[in-house]
């Protein structure tokens, strides 16, 4: 203690109290004391004296130690007494903060730090220390505390290796601890859940001035919440020892961390997605049973998957670098290279081809290929088995069709037998009666029986026509038809067919276009529809037949594959009957499909109509629902020509032979042959006959006059056509009329018949035969 400063302090003590305080505050006064514990006197410097309201001179000379407590604020006094007692009892260190009451009644904050000095036997000798006026410091601390608290910054001071650290209130608040100035290091570190120890060894061994930074996740003990903190600290030299104190702060970085974590989680998720994808793709590549190949746009294989080896037997190493076409079946090379080029060009293609496996066996593959940045990726599904199965299916279907055909034949036979039996009963019955009457000599009413027999026979003929129409081998005889006339002409027939319970309405459109079709077939079709309608209206009802002009447009045509758009004459047959459910409508045109009991219908009606419509370039459509009646619309194409004059009735002009021409009849069926001979005879022609081709040829090779050869085509041995050809070798201009009962012969007639050859189809009426014979002979 310099005497100069002592003199200064002496002067200080004489200042008025207020000024003194200001002076002390400005000086940051430090006072010292030295308590002689043995002598029981306390010595102090003038600053101590001023702070404690003592006379500096007295203080320097030694005063009663109780002065130490005299000016202490009553609230602090007891604490300080205990502290001092501790020193006297053996404690080394004294460190206390307390308030001193200034003589003017003001309060100053004081920090007192002291040590006890002992003799060799640990007996206390002196208790010496320093007083510091920390009033200003307190204010600064308060400001710092507020700043830290506002900024969310917690301060600490820590010496590595120590069990406690000095901290600020805000520090405790950030960690969720009860505010305290000293916290156990182990407690603070126990809160850390991630990031090592908050007061940890990472702070040790740093040079003074060096900044340490670390981040921690902690679990707050008060709320249990997780929170991220950052710690920044600086190593500061510690007065007496080599030990460094770490002074630093902590602050909350939870939001930043959360954002970071989210970002990381996001990128990890992304990575894992990519990884998963890659793994999946690898797995697909490895495990796919399809061929997966990578080709250059030049068609050279760059990679093949294990399925390649499995299916074809070629190892990848003997495959890669070769063109895919090397493995392709000769017949598929062109398709394959075209499609690969297409894939490379347009970026995608699908095709099928065969690859040859190691043993040379072809295997079918169905490919989809796509191109991406100059590389073609192709996926080939092995379809050899599917192909085989498809073929097996086709064969099975063929067998099924055959079986269905056989069944159909059974159905047909049954139906035909029924119909024919009925008709034959009519014919035989009528002829029986005719014979009986003739035997009885009764000639009245004979014509009635003959008519009945002819009518039945005609219907039998119509039945065979229907059968042929069904087989679409019916030689149609299309001609311009006026549908209105045709329908009107059928009115009587229809009324008889329908019976009394059913009303018939015919509505004909005015200026109806002509159509072109086989009128007989159209009549047949309408009759069939009428019969179906009748059967659907067991309790009676109304049948309406309408005609109209109509136009089927593209939209309609698009929905019905076989229809061409254009103008049609429509004949619609509508009943008020029971109608048909959709599944029946769907099958209504199927041959032999019938809803009638076996033996009561051939199931050919609608099928025949369908066949007729198609052959006439027309179309037929059913509209119906259960209980809603049925409408069948028959569309026939418009015919633009004029109606030809009606042919004169053949009956009116029976052919007549003027010059006794000779006609050779070759027919193996004696009944037919006799019938023809008889008709020719009636017509006045001379006739020759033969029962087979050979016999016929002998006659033809003779010098007999023969003006016309009438021959059945289906003859045993030499057939009709061969006979005609052979005959023409000798008689080049021989006229020939073929008789045929067989469809084939009819349908091929156009290419079959040479000039001077004509054909007539069984069964034919006498009139028709007479007319044809006369026409042929007259042409000569």
């Amino acid at each position, binding site marked *: 203690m310099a005497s100069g400063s002592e003199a200064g302090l002496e002067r200080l003590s004489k200042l008025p109290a207020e000024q003194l305080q200001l002076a002390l505050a400005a000086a940051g006064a430090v006072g010292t004391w030295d308590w002689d514990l043995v002598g029981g006197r306390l010595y102090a410097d003038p600053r101590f004296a001023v702070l404690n309201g003592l006379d500096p001179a007295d203080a320097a000379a030694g005063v009663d130690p109780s002065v130490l407590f005299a000016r202490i604020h009553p609230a602090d006094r*007891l*604490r300080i*007494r*205990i*502290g001092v*007692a*501790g020193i*006297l*009892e*053996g*404690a*080394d*260190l004294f*460190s206390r903060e307390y308030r001193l009451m200034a003589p003017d009644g003001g309060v100053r904050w004081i920090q007192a730090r002291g040590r*006890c000095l*002992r003799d060799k036997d*640990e007996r206390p000798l002196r208790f010496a220390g320093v007083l510091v006026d920390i009033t200003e410091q307190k204010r600064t601390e308060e400001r710092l505390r507020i700043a830290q608290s506002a900024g969310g910054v917690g301060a600490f001071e820590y*010496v*590595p*290796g*120590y*069990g*406690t650290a000095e901290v600020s209130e805000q520090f405790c608040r950030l960690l969720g*601890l*009860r505010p*305290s100035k*000293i*916290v*156990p*290091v*182990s*407690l603070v*570190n*126990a809160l*850390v859940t991630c990031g*090592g*120890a908050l007061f*940890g*060894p990472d702070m*040790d061994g740093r040079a003074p001035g060096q900044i340490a930074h670390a981040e921690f996740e902690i679990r707050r*003990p008060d709320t249990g919440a997780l929170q991220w903190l950052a710690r920044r600290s600086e190593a500061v030299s*510690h007065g*007496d*020892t*080599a*030990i460094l104190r770490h002074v630093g702060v902590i602050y909350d970085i939870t939001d930043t961390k959360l954002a970071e974590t989210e970002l990381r989680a996001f990128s990890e998720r992304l990575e894992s997605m990519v990884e998963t994808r890659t793994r999946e793709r690898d797995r697909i590549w490895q495990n796919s049973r399809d061929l997966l190949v990578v080709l250059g746009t030049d068609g050279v294989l760059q990679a093949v998957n294990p399925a390649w080896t499995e299916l074809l037997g070629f190892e990848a190493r003997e495959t890669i670098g070769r063109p895919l076409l090397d493995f392709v079946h000769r017949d598929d090379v062109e398709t394959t290279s075209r499609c690969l080029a297409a894939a490379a060009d347009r970026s995608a293609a699908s095709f099928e081809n065969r690859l040859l496996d190691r043993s040379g066996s072809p295997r079918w593959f169905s490919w989809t290929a796509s191109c991406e940045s100059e590389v073609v990726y192709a996926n080939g599904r092995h379809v050899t088995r599917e192909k085989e199965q498809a073929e097996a299916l086709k064969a099975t279907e063929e067998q099924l069709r055959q079986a269905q055909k056989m069944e159909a034949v059974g159905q047909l036979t049954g139906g035909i037998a029924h119909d024919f039996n009925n008709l034959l009963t009519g014919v035989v019955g009528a002829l029986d009666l005719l014979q009986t009457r003739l035997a009885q000599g009764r000639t009245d009413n004979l014509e009635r029986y003959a008519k009945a027999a002819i009518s039945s026979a005609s219907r039998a003929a119509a039945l065979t026509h229907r059968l042929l129409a069904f087989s679409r081998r019916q030689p149609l005889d299309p001609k311009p038809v006026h549908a209105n006339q045709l329908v009107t002409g059928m009115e009587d027939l229809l009324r008889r067919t329908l019976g009394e319970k059913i009303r018939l309405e015919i509505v004909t459109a005015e200026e109806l276009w002509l159509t072109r079709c086989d009128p007989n077939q159209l009549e047949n079709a309408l009759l069939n529809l009428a019969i179906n309608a009748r059967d659907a209206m067991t309790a009676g009802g109304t049948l309406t037949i309408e005609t109209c002009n109509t136009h089927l447009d593209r939209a309609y045509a698009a929905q019905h594959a076989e229809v061409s758009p254009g103008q049609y004459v429509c004949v619609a047959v509508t009943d008020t009957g029971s109608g048909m459910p959709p599944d029946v409508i769907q099958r209504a045109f199927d041959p032999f499909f019938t809803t009638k009991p076996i033996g009561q219908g051939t199931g050919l009606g609608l099928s025949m109509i369908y066949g007729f419509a198609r052959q006439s370039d027309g179309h037929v459509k059913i509209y119906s629902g259960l209980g809603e009646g049925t409408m069948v619309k028959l569309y026939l194409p418009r015919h633009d020509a004029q109606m030809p004059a009606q042919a004169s009735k053949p009956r009116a002009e029976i052919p007549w032979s003027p010059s006794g021409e000779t006609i050779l009849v070759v027919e193996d069926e004696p009944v037919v042959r006799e019938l023809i001979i008889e008709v020719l005879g009636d017509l006045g022609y001379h006739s020759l006959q033969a029962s087979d081709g050979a016999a016929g040829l002998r006659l033809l090779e003779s010098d007999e006059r023969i003006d016309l050869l009438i021959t059945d085509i289906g003859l045993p041995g030499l057939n009709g056509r061969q006979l005609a050809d052979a005959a023409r070798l000798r008689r080049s201009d021989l006229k020939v009329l073929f008789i045929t009962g067989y469809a084939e012969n009819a349908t091929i007639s156009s290419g079959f018949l040479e000039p001077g050859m004509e054909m007539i189809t069984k069964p034919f009426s006498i009139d028709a035969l007479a007319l044809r014979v006369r026409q042929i002979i007259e042409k000569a």
Partner: protein
Amino acid sequence: MSGAELELTELELDALTELVNIGVSRAAASLRKMIGVQVLLSVPSVEIIDRETAAQLIGTREDSQLVAVHQGFTGAFSGHAMLIFPEKSSLELVHAVTSTNVASEEFADLEEEALAETGNIILNGCLATMANMLQQSLTMTLPEVLRGRGPELFQIAGEPGRGGAVLFLYINFSVQDRDIRGYIAMLMDLPSLASMKLLVGSFIERVAGLDAGA
């Protein structure tokens, strides 16, 4: 860290701190005698916490390898006292303690028991002084040296789940001019905080010549 149903007043806590201060000062004096240099102490920190919190504290994590000398005590109050150093400091301490007495070749041999004896002197000095101050007697177990990280050390010290409070006490110390630092940790079972209050009260009365209640 609250939870004790009956809390010590600030004055009582101050007195208790002072009590520890006295005990530790004595211990520091012993250490000073052994190594011949000044031993610096921090102001003790005293925490009275409930047993559950104590259990959490005991589960603490300490990243560095620690060395501890542990001594149990029973009597008016019972508990565990530990002298804890970072491993590096413990070696330095052993070196300081033995250098004047032991040849260096014996050193490694002696390390463990030198630690135990040093710990024994420090902890005994501290505890015995406190016992004397409170005019109570304590029985102390033989010192044992523990090595490990925080939880492993404190596991010995804690038997949580019995209710009551635990007094946690820390004093940091360092040795002048030597890289020796560490701390004394004491865990005391306080089955009756009320009796501790009484003991502290009479201590206050004795040392300060004052009535604790005043």
